[in-house]
């Protein structure tokens, strides 16, 4: 596969993945906060094609689950009434991408609720919560990466352009940030920010904390690029014509750092999604009733949940395809920008 093909393929994969999460309302059968107290910890339902009498159905169907006699969390299939799965049904109202009001859902059922990935302690649909939770986690990762790259580009350009003591100081601080293990840094930053805040404030706080952790590496890379670019002939010529520092940085130097920043973005975004997950998992991030991949996993800290309800682990797996996509994109970008074959150097070959 050529390098360009590789890049477009990974981009398509990522756009599709993000599209599913962005249009969570359509793909999720229910509202993520809608409770069904009568059905806590419902296990994932099975779709069938063949019923008890051996008849083949054209439409996949499922049996509603009912509580087993004398139990509070053990369910059995009610084989009396098969409920067919319907595509493009009308259900809970939502706003597509937060704008377009709609009631259309990819799938659903009439007469019984369908929970393909089970339900949580309050009977909320796990699949819907994972899809909506992805919006929070991905947005935190993307915004965090934007903050980091802005910060990194600004500091890197300042350090590279105005060499001397300013460069020394900034790079020593960057070294400090690079040396600290990132989770400790995340913890330390979070430790000194307020704890009891509203969900939206908590989300913004998470973005700020994540964004401030990772600026050092992009800053150093940008500085390296700036150091070499600022001595190039076209920059010197522009300076000779009387261009100001700001003009030079904005029009001649910043564009040269674009490829480094792009590659860094592909590396940082998945890390920051994971950072949000970690913070929320530990109770330092986005709180209930908002769902994010991290706080969906937080219930696993209860031993009883861990033992009995394995499907509460499923949100963890949601991040894996994103990790794969971003790693592939990062390596495709690196191959494009570095002349030698990256694969031989690092052994990284995702295809």
């Amino acid at each position, binding site marked *: 596969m050529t390098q360009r093909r590789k890049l477009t393929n990974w981009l398509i994969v990522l756009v599709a993945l993000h599209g599913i999460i962005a249009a969570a309302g359509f793909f999720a059968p229910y509202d993520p906060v809608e409770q069904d107290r009568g059905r806590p910890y419902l296990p994932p339902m099975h779709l069938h094609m063949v019923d008890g009498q051996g008849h083949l159905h054209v439409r996949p169907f499922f049996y509603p689950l009912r509580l087993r006699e004398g139990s509070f969390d053990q369910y059995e299939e009610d084989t009396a009434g098969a409920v067919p799965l319907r595509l493009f049904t009308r259900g809970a109202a939502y706003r597509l991408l937060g704008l377009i009001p709609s009631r259309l859902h990819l799938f659903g059922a009439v007469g019984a609720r369908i929970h393909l990935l089970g339900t949580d302690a309050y009977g909320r649909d796990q699949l819907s919560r994972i899809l909506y939770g992805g919006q929070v986690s991905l947005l935190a990762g993307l915004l965090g990466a934007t903050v980091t790259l802005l910060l990194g580009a600004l500091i890197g350009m300042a350090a590279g352009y105005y060499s001397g003591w300013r460069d020394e100081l900034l790079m*020593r*601080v960057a*070294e*400090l940030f690079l*040396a*600290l*293990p*990132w*989770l*400790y840094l995340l*913890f*330390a*930053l*979070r*430790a*000194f*920010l*307020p*704890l009891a805040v509203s969900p939206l404030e908590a989300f913004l706080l998470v973005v700020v904390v994540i964004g401030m952790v990772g600026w050092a590496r992009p800053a150093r890379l940008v500085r390296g690029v700036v150091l070499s670019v600022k001595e190039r002939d076209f920059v010197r010529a522009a300076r000779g014509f009387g261009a100001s520092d700001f003009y030079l940085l904005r029009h001649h130097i910043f564009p040269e750092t674009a490829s480094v920043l792009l590659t860094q973005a592909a590396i940082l975004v998945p890390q920051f999604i*994971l950072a949000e*997950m*970690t913070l929320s*998992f*530990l*109770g*330092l991030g986005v709180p209930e009733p908002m769902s994010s991949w991290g706080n969906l*996993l937080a219930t*696993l*800290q209860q*031993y009883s949940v*861990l*033992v009995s309800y*394995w499907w509460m*682990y499923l949100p*963890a*797996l949601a*991040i*894996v395809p994103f*990790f*794969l996509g971003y*790693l592939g994109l990062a390596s495709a970008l690196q191959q494009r920008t570095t002349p030698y074959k990256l694969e*031989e*150097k*690092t*052994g*990284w*070959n*995702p295809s």
Partner: protein
Amino acid sequence: MRYFLRRTLHAVFLLFGVSLLTFLFSALTPGNYFDEMRLNPQISPETVSALRIQYQLDRPLPVRYAHWLNAVAHGELGFSFAYNSPVAPLLWVRARNTLALTVTAMLLAWLIALPLGVWSAARFGRAPDRVLSFTTATLLVVPDLVLALGLLILAVRTGWFPTGGLVSVNFDELSAPQKLRDLGFHLALPVIALVVATLPMLVRHVRASVAEALDAPFLRAALGHGIPRSKLLYGYALRAAANPLISLFGFSAGTLLSGSLLVEVVMSWPGLGPLLLESILARDLYVVIGGVLLSMLFLVGGNLFADILLYWADPRIRTAASAK
């Protein structure tokens, strides 16, 4: 000798910088431990302000920093508000457990990664190498948190390993070999999680640098001289490839510390991780600073060790250092 001196100075500077940084962050804190206390109607405002003065939280930041530095010089790390005891002994017990976990995991990961990477590099591009590369690539996209939780669920459902704590409840009644076995059993799950989390990166790096070394003309010459294959791989190629790997050793200490923080919380291993989380939630300022600093000390220690190893392994560094 001057080489070591320079590295040590660098380490001290780093520690100093981190302490300054965490103190600066703490100055930006909108709340502290006593704010929570003030909300408690059973504690009078006079008591709270007296406590504030006792712990010198009313003093300006530079004064507090100087006091704290002075305490550190005397082997103390400030005072924990929540535990009402000095921070150092508190941290020490936890740090021991964290060290036991990370050092075991680190040794194990490298002991597996070295032969596996060399084995893979010797078969570069052939079927076994491809299978291994694919496996490590797959493991690379599974984050620590996902891995640790998955392992925990596996352990709970199979009952193979205990799922938390340092030792069993009846630890005191066991004989010495039984004690060791019990500790090992409890250590197993977190260690496995950490090893699996770090192994793919290590194997890939070992494989890449050994494969590069294998390409060098001197190794082809050695092969032509009929030197046995195992000696060629481990005696010659690995040695030539050692330089970037030793640097990676220092770096892997950092990722392991981060990883262990998470694994400890997930698997309730009584190390620094749970303590740090607890003190963040309680706003126990000095415990947080102490914990971060202690982890930094481990990291710097690991890096210093890597530097010494590098000095011993790479003659180029020795000559460069003595030439100065």
